[in-house]
């Protein structure tokens, strides 16, 4: 065979070899990525300079006004720490009627409070706040005869919301406020976990939340009366929405009122700063697994100083669609006093954890429930738009989530900007330790606060319930 005849043969053979070599036999049917979904989670102040508009979705409150038992209303608190005024729109959504839009201006370093009832007159109302700045913090105060509840508004709507703790025992009132701020109707399915196991009430399947309106679901009336353990998941078939709970405890060891958003996602870590064990105090963690697989949860108590090393993390199994409750009173070796808690999952991002703590308040008790801080939301800087107008102790509970000691300072945001609050500067914060902050200095009262430290922290608030009620109402501050 001549060289001339061999050359093309060799060439073709080489090409064939290359082709075969190049074939990895895989198909690339992987979806391209348009956006990495902003992980729905703990409400946070984005502070994103590139944002054009920022929207806040508040959970909704009763807006019935004066009723037999007192005032049922809500307020929206907007805190602008920047030196530039902020413009925006507040839209109130109700169960019926058209949405009401109202312009809003937040002055530089200012605090704007909007009475929901000044916008609408309805049994319940939710608000959407749209601003041209991402630096403003927006939260909602739900005014109720059983106590005012403060809760951050959500950064985004979601197609999934979970509530780890609900309570209908002894006639307690547990309502879900489902808000659809969009122009398309949302269709949701509600599933409930009780002590008896998971249930999917047929009347709450394919439940429609019309466009730009809200729906309120009375969970007890939906077939879940006298439940001490009640976790709820609301999942959209189509659309996105915001879900909050309006819980009025009337017995069963719990009293008081809370109003808070659900969790828009599961997480593998849940941080809590404000735990307490003591006489007359009931502290329970509802660990809810809304997934289809069994979750393995690990419970680690923090903030005990030298003792913590003696309490190894406890591990427990959480069946799918069920709730497991951890009562700190039953934890042997846990000393009385303050502590923090980290509940994490060993099986992935599959848990929702809520802490319910009932403390004595004069001759009765006050119950408050707080969702923990999800993984990735601990921060060195926290904002407290709503603090206290009166001097109170233990108003802020700060957990150092890192294993190294650090310090933090409390600033008051006034017309001159951020000013350190006397005696609240460079506060030591030991590794994984908890510090409670008393707000007694006039500079700290009635003003938005900022906590800035050099370690990742979790900050909870213990605010007064109202001027006539004893006890505190817990809520998270805003990580920045």
């Amino acid at each position: 065979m001549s060289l001339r005849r061999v050359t093309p043969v060799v060439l073709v053979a080489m090409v064939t070899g290359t082709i075969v070599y190049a074939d990895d036999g895989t198909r690339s049917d992987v979806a391209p990525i348009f956006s990495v979904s902003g992980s729905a989670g703990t409400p946070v102040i984005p502070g994103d300079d590139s944002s054009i508009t920022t929207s806040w979705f508040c959970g909704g409150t009763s807006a019935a006004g004066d009723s037999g038992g007192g005032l049922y209303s809500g307020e929206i608190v907007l805190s602008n720490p920047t030196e530039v005024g902020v413009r925006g729109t507040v839209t109130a959504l109700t169960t019926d009627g058209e949405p009401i839009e109202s312009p809003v201006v937040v002055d530089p370093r200012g605090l704007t409070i909007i009475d929901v009832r000044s916008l609408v007159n309805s049994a319940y109302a939710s608000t959407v706040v749209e601003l041209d700045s991402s630096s403003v913090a927006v939260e909602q105060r739900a005014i109720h005869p059983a106590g005012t509840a403060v809760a951050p508004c959500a950064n985004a709507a979601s197609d999934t919301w979970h509530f780890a703790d609900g309570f209908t025992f002894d006639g307690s009132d547990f309502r879900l406020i489902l808000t659809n701020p969009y122009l398309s109707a949302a269709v949701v399915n509600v599933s409930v976990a009780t002590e008896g196991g998971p249930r999917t009430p047929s009347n709450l399947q394919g439940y429609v939340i019309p466009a730009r309106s809200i729906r309120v679901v009375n969970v007890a009336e939906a077939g879940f009366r006298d439940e001490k353990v009640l976790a709820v998941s609301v999942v959209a078939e189509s659309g996105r929405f915001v879900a909050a709970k309006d819980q009025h405890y009337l017995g069963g060891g719990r009293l008081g009122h809370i109003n808070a958003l659900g969790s828009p996602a599961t997480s593998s870590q849940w941080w809590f700063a404000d735990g307490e064990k003591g006489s007359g105090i009931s502290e329970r963690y509802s660990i809810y697994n809304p997934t289809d697989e069994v979750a393995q949860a690990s419970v680690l108590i923090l903030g005990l100083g030298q003792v913590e090393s003696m309490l190894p993390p406890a591990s427990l199994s959480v069946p799918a669609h069920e709730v497991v409750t951890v009562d700190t009173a039953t934890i042997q070796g846990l000393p009385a006093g303050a502590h923090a808690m980290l509940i994490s999952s060993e099986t992935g991002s599959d848990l929702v954890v809520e802490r319910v703590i009932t403390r004595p308040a004069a001759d009765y008790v006050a119950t408050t429930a707080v969702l923990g801080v999800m993984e990735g939301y601990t921060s060195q800087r926290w904002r407290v738009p709503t603090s206290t107008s009166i001097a109170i102790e233990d108003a802020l509970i700060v957990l150092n989530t890192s294993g190294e000691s650090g310090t933090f300072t409390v600033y008051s945001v006034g017309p001159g900007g951020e000013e350190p609050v006397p005696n609240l500067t460079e506060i030591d914060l030991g590794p994984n330790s908890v510090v409670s902050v008393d707000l007694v200095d006039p500079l700290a009262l009635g003003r938005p606060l900022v906590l800035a430290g050099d370690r990742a922290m979790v900050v909870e608030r213990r605010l007064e319930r109202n001027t006539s009620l004893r006890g505190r109402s817990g809520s998270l501050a805003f990580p920045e």
Partner: protein
Amino acid sequence: MENELEPPLSDDDREDAVASAPAAPGVVAALVVHAPSEALGECLDSLKAQVYPNLQTLVLVTGSAPEDLALVNGLVEARSMAVHVRHVGSNPGFGATANSVARLVQGDGGLFLFLHDDVALEPDAVRLMVEELYRSNAGLVGPKFVEWDDVRRLQMVGFDADRFGELDSAVEEHEIDQEQHDAVRDVFVLPSACLLVRADLFREMGGFEESIEFHGEDLDFCWRAHLMGARVVVAPAARVRHRGGLRDRRDDLSHVAMDARHRLSTVASLTGAARSLVVIPTLIVVTLVEAIVSLVTGHVRRASTEVRALVAVPRDIVSILRRRRRVALLRRIPDREIADLQVRGSVRWRRVVRGRRRSSGFAVGRGASDNSGSREPIAVVAWFVLWAALLVGSRDLIGGGVASIADMLPWSDSPRDLAHSYMSGWWDKDLGATTAQPTGNILLALGGALTLGHPALAQTMVIIGLVAAGWLGAWRLCAVASVPRARLIGTIAYAAVPLPYAAVAAGRLQALIAYAVLPWALHLMRLFGGLGLPRGAEESSRAVGDVVEHPDTATRVRVVSSLALLLSVTAAFAPSVMLIVLVCAILWILATLMAGGSSRAAGLGIASVSVSMVAAVVVNLPWMTRYLASDGWQAFIGSRTGSDLGVWQVLRFGIGPSALGGLIILLFVPALVAPFVSRGWRFVWAVRAAVLIAGSTLLAVLGQRDSFPVDLPEPGVLLAPAAVGVALGVSMVWVVFGADVRGARFGLRQPVALVSLACIPVGLVPVLAVAGDGRWQQPEATFSGQMTELLATDERGGFRVLIIGDERLVPGGSHELGVGLRYSVVESGRLGADDLWTPTPDDVDRYLEPLIEAVASGATDRVGRLMAPLGVRYVVIPVVDRVVSTSRDPLPVPDGLVDSFGAQLDFRRKFSPASMIVFENQQAIPSVSILTAAGSEAASSGGNEALAVVDMSGAKPVSSLARPWKSVSESVPSGTLHLGVPLDERWSAVLDGRAIDLGASFGSVMSATVDEPGVLELSHHRPFSRILWVLAQSMLWVILVLGWRQPKNLRRRRSSRTPAVVVDDSPIIAMETRP
């Protein structure tokens, strides 16, 4: 090679022969000379050598070139011949020139011998013919013609003719002369190349028909001789060599067309009145059938010629009637007797049955002609089967139209609007701009106009026509196989490749264009390079190398013009195909170098491609500058179809649903086997085929694996050369089997070649299976069709639709957004073929893309308000296109896309088919509208932050989107006029005859203050440079077309305009009988 007749006699012998001859009538040899060639010398020599004692020679030199006359005189003087030379001056044609003999020669007692200037007579040829004339009492006598270069081979021995004037020769092509035709016999026609006629008869007949310049004068002349009762006899003992090749010498003439036209007019003129009633209608039917046969066998030009000749008959009616009147005076024999002299039935049909080429008085030049085998019965049948398969396979497309999928988008309903848009310079694609427009738009307009405003019909014809064009191109290219059946089998193999059907099914227009264009491009490249077709002994030659016959310059100009025109149209619609043509040229030269082919021919081939590409770029300017933009390369290579083809799918051309099974890869076997078993020129072609396949497949695989340094065109385009390689390879194996394998010493070649041949029929099976579907598995319901139905009915003023999603699903031209993501902007939700292209993304980059990115990053949930000034009313996310993504196996929607747009507070999810997700922007502002008060304020304040907090809804539409070629004139209330196109100073607004300022608005578009109600008129001023360029561009296209088609006609006109030189008509020769 023997190329001489009997050796010329010595002067003494000749004188002896003359002296011993009986009384000889005078013979005047009338030699008509045009553009003297070297054959003329031999012709004169042969005349000088004649033993006939009473022969005078009259040379009639046509043409106006004085050097021709000088050359002839020189030749005559060099031979010391007593020859009369007359310069006719012009070139009125052979018949008219020859007729001057009647004036220049006195006396009726002799004979005229009419000669072409490329015949050489044996020394006794004249004598033998004269003797036979007297012996047979004939009026006309002709000799036996043999080939110029090989006197053993017969050329012509007179012709029979049927009643339609079609000539039939008893001589087969290249038939060896074994005296089998040496009997004297009556024939119907004698060639005018050498024709002896009685002078008195000639004068009485009025000579040749002067309206016949070339081709057919002999039929007319002989037919009239028959009418007068003269015998027309061939005397085979008289032998002449004939070079022929008028087609090569007079390439300015449309030989086939002239032949057909003159034949029909002769039949119409000479057939008796009664018989005409039957003959003429039959002739029409036969001609139409012939045209259809030519058409289906790929000879479009021939079919056109047939039809044109038929159409010309009514046009020549005056001339025909005049001829009939003259003939009526001559007619002495009843027409039925003439009919008896003619062949019964149809010569054409007999020719088809016998598988022979058309007889003609002209030898077929070797050159690059590729008509071999076109009329073989098996070829005709095969072509009929192919056409039937195409029509049956496309029956639903023909009946219901082509589905609008991927790049096969419906043609505009209004070609006029397309043309207006092109001329205006304003292109409303994307956000609209005064910018370069694709040349394809004007070509689409022309296509739509050609179907009289039936764009869907035009589109269907083009889509199906592209498949057929590919077949015809393969037919032309496979002519290199020289064996008709090999050519045919190569064409069938090309038709069996599933690439075009998969391309139709998947809407891959570029792949379909590549399939259609590539064989033509390679064919033209071959012609330009001078790669000829092996003939005769060359067919079985085992010497490695190409058969080269470089064409003349005029042919090269025509070929390169054809290629340039082909690439120009291709570049207008599928620029990436141009790239593949270049790649093929490179592979071609590589294969040539490896296989020992003609590197010069290959070099010329690649040069022709290069020149043609440059021409294609120039005639597509300024649109071609679009590909210099930042995203130019992506726009150039076209939309991607996704990296999901493995080697197996590449090998089976699996680019779409109609990819069939894997049997098709059996066709690679013969193509890859061919280099191993072939010899001679076949080896070179076999290597070319193999290298085309290997290179093409390699590129397709690398392109799919993203293993190439740059993005490559879609696999369908890359695989087109492989399809051509398969066709060539299959052809070659067929030839090789006959030339190199069969009858050779037994070895590995035989079984290998046999196996590869056996693969061919198996590989052809799958295509038949898919033809049954009727639409090549194209889906009936399509994404773009449904989108049009859903959105295009919105009559709330002009609006735009943003289509965004997986790059494999976004139809038409689009802009890249990120890895695997693309978007496009479509006006009014109506996708059209003009959406194949996207302009330079300047405006969308500046105004729209940041908003899309804001949605992706979550920077706003009021993007509806931000997009409102741009008129974006709908956002459509394609989910199922029923080709790449089906309801059973949908592609995943890009992560976060639905969520991100679902999170927008201005968007309402619209109820839509499962093929798409549609969001409606409730804030959209109609493209031309009067803004609300809030909108007016926002328009002037600018800035996204300000815009995002303003409710933009409620603007009142004024009209649909403004058209630059239609002045929008409408009553408007006072307020702020919004014009949703980027700021462009060529737009102007006039209110009640008063110009109002159109200024920037919303930081992106335009607005004007209408201070009081009135009649508003919006108009766009066309830039003058646009007019100039359109004119220049039109001229460039015309030049290309002229280069392809017209030089022949131009030369003809030029020659016809040449004023005839006035010559002296007085007699110069007196004929007498020598005792």
